[in-house]
């Protein structure tokens, strides 16, 4: 218990140290604030504009949560299909890779033409960002399931789907969570990018406006918020992992 409490503080200490270094180097090298404001200035500006920021934040959070949910479910579903339907894996895997290489600047106009300026094209973009790590990790997890476990299940008469749900899926949960962590990290940036294709509010909107009026401090406020949110989502996944993969051999590794 005690050691856990201490651990929780470590990253905060490191981040504080980082911020202090930042503030100091701004002082020492006299970096102008329109180029790179110091953390204190950023913090102050953040406090000042809290009120105007809140609606932006909440709209981005909503977008991110829905996008991340859809994206990871989709990622899992794709991995599931590619894994279970024989031959499909090899055939469709390349398409997945391709999907990660359509630049947003090309996709955006098409999405807008097809789906308008509503929330749908934005969710498509976030999902596109989030599904891929989940799919790759899940597929690799499925493939690494120890063959003796699968063999036992087969001999015991398990159907393909039973093998999947009772062995392959539980075994690859850690791997899937690894993918989810990557996705969660990207999700907020995905949401911000998606907001660039036309949103009324959101951190992305706030940031571009700040940037176009040279309010570098506000740009950094947005970045801090983005960072904070993605950490939040990341640790949310970590917490869910702790509760889901609780059988993990901990006791033995104590030394």
């Amino acid at each position, binding site marked *: 218990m005690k050691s856990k409490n201490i651990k929780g503080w470590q990253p905060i200490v490191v981040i504080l140290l980082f911020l202090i270094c930042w503030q100091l180097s701004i002082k020492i090298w006299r970096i*102008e604030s*329109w*180029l790179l404001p110091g953390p204190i200035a950023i913090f102050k500006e953040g406090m000042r504009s809290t009120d105007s920021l809140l609606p932006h934040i909440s709209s981005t959070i909503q977008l991110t949560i829905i996008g991340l949910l859809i994206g990871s479910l989709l990622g899992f579903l794709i991995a599931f299909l590619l894994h279970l339907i024989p031959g499909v894996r090899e055939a469709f895997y390349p398409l997945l890779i391709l999907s990660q290489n359509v630049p947003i*600047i090309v996709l955006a106009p098409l999405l807008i033409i097809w789906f308008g*300026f509503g929330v749908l094209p934005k969710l498509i973009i976030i999902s596109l960002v989030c599904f891929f790590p989940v799919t790759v990790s899940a597929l690799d997890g499925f493939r690494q399931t120890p063959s003796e476990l699968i063999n036992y299940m087969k001999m015991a008469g398990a159907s393909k789907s039973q093998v999947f749900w009772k062995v392959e899926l539980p075994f690859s949960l850690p791997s899937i969570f690894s993918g989810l962590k990557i996705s969660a990290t990207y999700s907020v940036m995905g949401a911000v990018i998606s907001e660039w*294709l*036309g*949103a009324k509010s959101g951190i992305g909107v706030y940031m571009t406006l700040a940037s176009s*009026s*040279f309010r570098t401090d506000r740009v950094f406020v947005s970045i801090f918020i983005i960072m904070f949110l993605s950490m939040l989502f990341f640790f949310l996944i970590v917490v869910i992992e702790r509760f889901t993969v609780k059988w993990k051999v901990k006791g033995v590794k104590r030394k």
Partner: protein
Amino acid sequence: QNKTATTKKTKKLKKVTVVLDWTPNTNHTGLFVAKEKGYFKEQGLDVDIISPGETGADQLVASGKADFGVSYQESITQARVQNVPIVSIAAIIQHNTSGFASPVKKGIKSPKDFVGKTYGGWGSPVEKAILKSLMSEENANVNKLNIVNMGDADFFTAVKRDIDFAWIYQGWTGIQAELRGEKLNMIYLTDYSKKLDYYTPVLATNEKMISKNPKIVKAFVAAASKGYNFAIENPKEAASILIKDNPDLDKKLVEKSQEWLASKYKDDADRWGEQKLSVWKNYADFLAENKLLEGNFKPKEAFTNDFLPAK
């Protein structure tokens, strides 16, 4: 013999970088001409033209990482208010050639027709202020206009769908529409408000260059001026120079745009690049009136004609 002469010269050439605002286009022709025709070399400069993509030039110029850049009066106004030390040294195009464009079939002929329509922009409060001032000229209410943020989507895409009109540059997007045979209705800002006849784009540098290396600035502007004057007189050849340097640009678009712009660079001014205090003041006042200027703007410090070649 010719070769040795040039190498000898290059030794003494001063290296400077100029950062474009976006991908190369006909706004930049004069710079490419000056480089290609050796005008920069004549002035003892070895110019590196860089296009920064998304980044934009302002911060690079202001920080001194780039010596010169292509910017806009709007940016420089906002930037200077935030103490960014960037200064305009020449107006590339004398009058504002931007405006609100819409396909003819939407029937938007003047600002009063905006009522009940949807405008696609990028969500800046400045846009709303401008629309408001245009519409108020004709006693229309800006609140009856639906403003939508269309982000990065380009004009042609946007008007295909929910959007009725958007803000474009005639010299590029407008020309592209002509090439496609799409009839547009264009409402120029300058036709409705003198205050909105600002310089876009301009050449810019930072305050340090001006105070420490005025000679280089002078040389640079002189060569650029010569380049733009060449483009004014020989649009065809200028276009081919731009294409030669950027072979991946669309040839037809460049040629047509160049032809259109040739008369706009200098327009009614008595020399290329000339900037007027009133223009700088007007736009800042407009912003201030609409409470869009977060600080003090001193128009005199934002630009200078000092480096333009004598008339």
